[in-house]
């Protein structure tokens, strides 16, 4: 019997779970143990703070490409891309794909970052050395605020998924997934994050292809198209203003996310010399088709007679309905991997940012590597606990949670890009760009709609940064960025001279 004709899958809602809670718990347990064991195993390589935070700065192309891919294939891709398609149609899924440009355009920046800052640790290091303390503090506020919002959206997604797929209570699902990621990040640092990212990427990609083919087999394209034409023709509209706006908004939001976030900077620092640029380009092209495949799943929902009660759940519901109970394992795995791969990266890079930029630079500059590692571990645990507490009252859909940060991150694109390439760029332009971009973007977010926040924020910031820099140019010495970490200095002093 074709899946769409099976009675158990018709009119599927959140109340009819895809797999039994027992099966859900077994899968959750197996995957959790696997990630924790692998995390502890890889974590043994982290002998120093540089090893723990940056995986020894020796990550090869395969792991480099996979970790960029896995981190960008967040639960937002697997849950929000279908939501985009369901609300904004074909343009919606194409809009989500523009997120790949963030990775592709960051590729040359990754090379430049490695060249300008061979001893760098965080994106905060760059802003501090390039623009000075006031800009650095403003940047940290934006970056940590964004990182925390992303973390919350991931934690929420974990709880929603566990509940929808296996009937595991939302609160417990959120706690378990956050707990697992905190545990293996704590023990293994970036080694654990990158190692597990590779396996998670392969599983996600195989899973997405399996689900895509299954949907094709369950409902033919002609039926999907004709159903859409009859029931929701606007989803096929090539000139839908809100969707067209979302294309540019998502593109700029993606750029802002990648350009400023320490998640991506830490990978640029962690990869071997000459690997970063290739890894980001390969990952960008590999990620590009995923939102289209995920969006297609949502478009098929109208033909499958699925009752979607929450738009961010359309992906898992459709995937599970066409794959049947046995295939639900694939669904569970894909979503669990996409969540874990982003949560671990976010925990590690946010903890790095707080440890390096706040604790070491502002509170205890003479802290030893051992002390920093201890502080970093405490911050990972703290982030997990606070994120859990904020996640518990489910505050909105994933889109509303995430896109609120859009104007903030979009306002950092130009200060970062001009700071890396334009000697004349200065703190005045960077601060003015970030403040005006954020304010204008937030006004647009509330007055016009979520799909305009990043677009307005980035545009205003661009104009302000360029005008202020042009009016008050300075001449930056690139060598200022060659700062050596105290731990590195003590290592060099300790090692015998040849």
């Amino acid at each position, binding site marked *: 019997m074709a899946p769409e004709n099976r009675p158990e899958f018709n009119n599927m809602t959140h109340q009819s779970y895809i797999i039994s809670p027992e099966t859900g718990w077994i899968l959750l347990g197996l995957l959790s143990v696997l990630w924790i064991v692998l995390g502890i195993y890889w974590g043994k390589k982290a002998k120093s703070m540089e090893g723990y935070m940056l995986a020894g700065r020796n990550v*090869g192309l*395969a792991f480099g490409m996979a970790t960029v891919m896995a981190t960008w294939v967040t639960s937002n891709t697997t849950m929000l891309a279908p939501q985009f398609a369901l609300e904004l149609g*074909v343009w919606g899924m*194409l809009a989500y794909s523009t997120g790949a440009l963030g990775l592709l355009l960051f590729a040359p920046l990754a090379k430049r970052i490695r060249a300008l800052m061979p001893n760098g640790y965080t994106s905060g290091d760059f802003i501090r050395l390039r623009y000075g303390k006031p800009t650095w503090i403003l940047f940290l506020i934006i970056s940590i605020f964004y990182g925390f919002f992303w973390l919350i959206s991931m934690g929420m997604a974990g709880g929603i998924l566990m509940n929808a797929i296996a009937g595991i209570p939302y609160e417990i699902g959120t706690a378990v997934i956050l707990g697992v990621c905190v545990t293996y990040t704590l023990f293994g640092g970036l080694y654990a994050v990158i190692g597990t990212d590779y396996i998670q*990427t392969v599983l996600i*990609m195989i899973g997405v292809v399996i689900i895509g083919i299954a949907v*094709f087999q369950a409902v033919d394209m002609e039926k999907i198209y004709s159903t859409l034409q009859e029931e929701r023709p606007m989803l096929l509209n090539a000139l839908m203003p809100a969707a067209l706006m979302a294309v540019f908004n998502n593109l700029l939001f993606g750029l802002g996310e990648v350009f400023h976030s320490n998640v991506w900077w830490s990978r640029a620092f962690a990869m071997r010399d000459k690997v970063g640029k290739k890894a980001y380009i*390969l990952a960008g092209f590999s990620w590009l088709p995923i939102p289209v495949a995920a969006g297609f799943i949502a478009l098929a929902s109208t033909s499958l007679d699925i009752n979607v009660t929450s738009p961010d759940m359309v992906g898992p519901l459709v995937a599970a309905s066409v794959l049947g109970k046995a295939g639900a394992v694939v669904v569970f795995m894909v979503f669990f991997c996409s969540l874990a791969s982003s949560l671990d990266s976010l925990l590690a890079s946010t903890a790095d940012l707080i440890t390096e930029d706040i604790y070491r630079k502002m509170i205890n500059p003479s802290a030893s590597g051992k002390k920093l590692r201890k502080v970093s571990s405490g911050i990972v645990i703290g982030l997990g606990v606070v994120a859990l507490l904020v996640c518990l009252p489910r505050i909105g859909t994933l889109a509303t949670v995430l896109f609120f940060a859009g104007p903030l991150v979009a306002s950092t694109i130009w200060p970062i890009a001009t700071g890396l390439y334009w000697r004349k760029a200065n703190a005045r332009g960077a601060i003015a760009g970030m403040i005006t971009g954020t304010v204008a973007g937030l006004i647009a977010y509330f007055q016009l709609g979520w799909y305009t926040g990043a677009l307005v924020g980035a545009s205003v910031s661009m104009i302000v940064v360029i005008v202020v820099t042009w009016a008050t140019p300075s001449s930056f010495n690139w060598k200022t960025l060659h700062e050596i970490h105290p731990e590195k200095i003590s290592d060099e002093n300790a090692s015998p001279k040849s």
Partner: protein
Amino acid sequence: MFSQGFITLIIVLSLVLISIATIVLLALLVDDIKNKKVW
């Protein structure tokens, strides 16, 4: 209005691209292991 042909094309193309990316990723790891450049 997007045509059925266009939508089918981008979906098939995306599934093919993801499959190729998976193979590339596995091949790169084999290469890195051979050259001892995994980490």
